[in-house]
């Protein structure tokens, strides 16, 4: 990688080179996932990964891949409804972990009478609003301030595919092609694949793919899983898409 020096690999407990820590007079330093502040002025990585620093935003975090999802506020996730309570839906974010709560009225335009009736097993695309260490996380499907859904809500039809957390994060990056090195979805939808489909990516390692055509969903799912499991680069992704499209035509 060209920017290898600006993205050093750190291990848990490593000392961080003080020259890498952004120094800013007017902005306080913001620490992201994987870093821990030990007062007065020690910063230690708690996971193994690439240390990323943004001097102009005065922030730093560790980019890493894992399989276990820990909810963080403002994450977009895909959850499965477990059951409905008097005021909340209980939603599972990952298997064998505590369920999250989603208020019945936290959907766009929902009132007591018009709220969506979700049966156990249905999928929702939601945002984490509250994530504390010893409490069940809370979710919302409509922004609390504007009341708009912004694409969140129940997911109907389609299929969910499990991917690693790092891959889900790469897919969600604003410029996933340059920063995350994932181009597979653009290729499938573009000239290479000419497929029409929609996706929703959850930070909990789930990707929902919907399309009118069942075959399209299968191709997109296979492409995503293979890219993730084999760690394919951009060129390899292009080859993979070509192969998959050819195979099924």
């Amino acid at each position, binding site marked *: 990688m060209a920017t290898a020096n600006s993205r050093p690999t750190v291990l848990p407990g490593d000392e961080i080179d003080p020259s890498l820590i952004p120094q800013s007079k007017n902005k306080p330093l913001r620490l992201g996932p994987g870093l821990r502040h030990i007062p007065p002025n020690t910063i230690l990585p708690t996971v193994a990964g690439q240390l990323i620093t943004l001097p102009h935003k005065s922030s730093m975090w560790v980019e890493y891949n894992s399989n276990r999802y820990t909810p963080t506020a403002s994450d977009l996730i895909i959850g499965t409804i477990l059951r409905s309570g008097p005021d909340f839906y209980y939603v599972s974010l990952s298997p064998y972990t505590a369920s999250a709560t989603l208020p019945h009225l936290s959907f766009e335009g929902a009132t007591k009478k018009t709220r969506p009736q979700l049966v156990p097993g249905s999928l929702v695309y939601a945002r984490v609003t509250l994530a504390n260490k010893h409490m069940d996380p809370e979710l919302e499907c409509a922004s609390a301030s504007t009341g708009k859904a912004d694409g969140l809500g129940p997911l109907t039809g389609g*299929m969910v595919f499990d991917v690693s957390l790092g891959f889900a994060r790469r897919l969600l990056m604003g410029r996933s092609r340059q920063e995350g090195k994932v181009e597979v979805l653009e290729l499938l939808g573009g000239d290479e694949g000419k497929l029409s489909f929609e996706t929703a990516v959850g930070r909990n390692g789930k990707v929902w793919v919907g399309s009118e055509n069942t075959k399209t969903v299968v191709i997109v799912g296979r492409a995503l899983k293979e890219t993730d499991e084999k760690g394919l680069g951009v060129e390899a992704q292009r080859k993979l898409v070509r192969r998959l499209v050819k*195979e099924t035509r």
Partner: protein
Amino acid sequence: MPREVEPSLNEKQFVLQALQENLRLDGREIDQYRPLELTFGDQYGVADVTLGKTRVLAKASAEVTVPYTDRPLDGIFTIATELSPMTSPAFELNRPTETEVLLSRLLEKTVRRSNALDTESLCLIAGQKCWSVRVDVHVLSHDGNLIDAACFAVVAALRHFRKPDTSMEGGVLTVYTPAEREPVPLSWLHSPFCITWSFFGDQGEIALLDATWVEEQIRVASCTISLNRHGEICQIAKLGGTPVDAVALLQCSGVALTKAKEFSTYLDGKLAEDTKKRNKGGLLAELSAENDR
């Protein structure tokens, strides 16, 4: 004990719809297995089988014990199956789930009751001493079709296994260490393999081989056929579920035979490869105390 997670409604509907259009999520044909891989350990009798993401490890071992009083001329042969919480948090030690009971019963019926291992050859002194052969099956990762993978692992481990050589002289039984005499293979009669079909749809009209975990969760019935490469069926287990047409089952058993032949050829190839690797300089034939028959 946490419950096994269930696939969501969207997943269930989609997998069924795709199957009706003859598509599988991983792009396989309906009668195609995931890539099967077998590796033997450094010791004799260790077989590690991976079938896609399912992984099973089988270890065979032998010790000298007293035979059962009602069967003084037979050795003892047991298969111990254990699904540990390492496989999935839904499994708990010492509290067998339905999957575990079915798995051990099927292995028992396939390998033990079909007399794949000649237990009479395990007898050393009638009524006093015999070999007790034990196979431990460890499921390391569960992504569906445990039965086929576990059965293949058990058969591979037993065929790879060598027990210490023994001799009887004037009523004295001697068990030789591997340094003194090359260990001898078990007396193996035939290699049965399990082939599991899963059925989908209201009438069970769609039949698949080698179902993954998701497919297993939504199937309406399953049928395990155990047979060897000569087409001798050891058992057929269809435990409950939707009734399936008899003609369809006949077709299934026809395909199962070709699969069993493929498994058998693959296993023979792997065993030959392993023997070649161990037989450095071609000295194994001289060390062996076995007679050619």
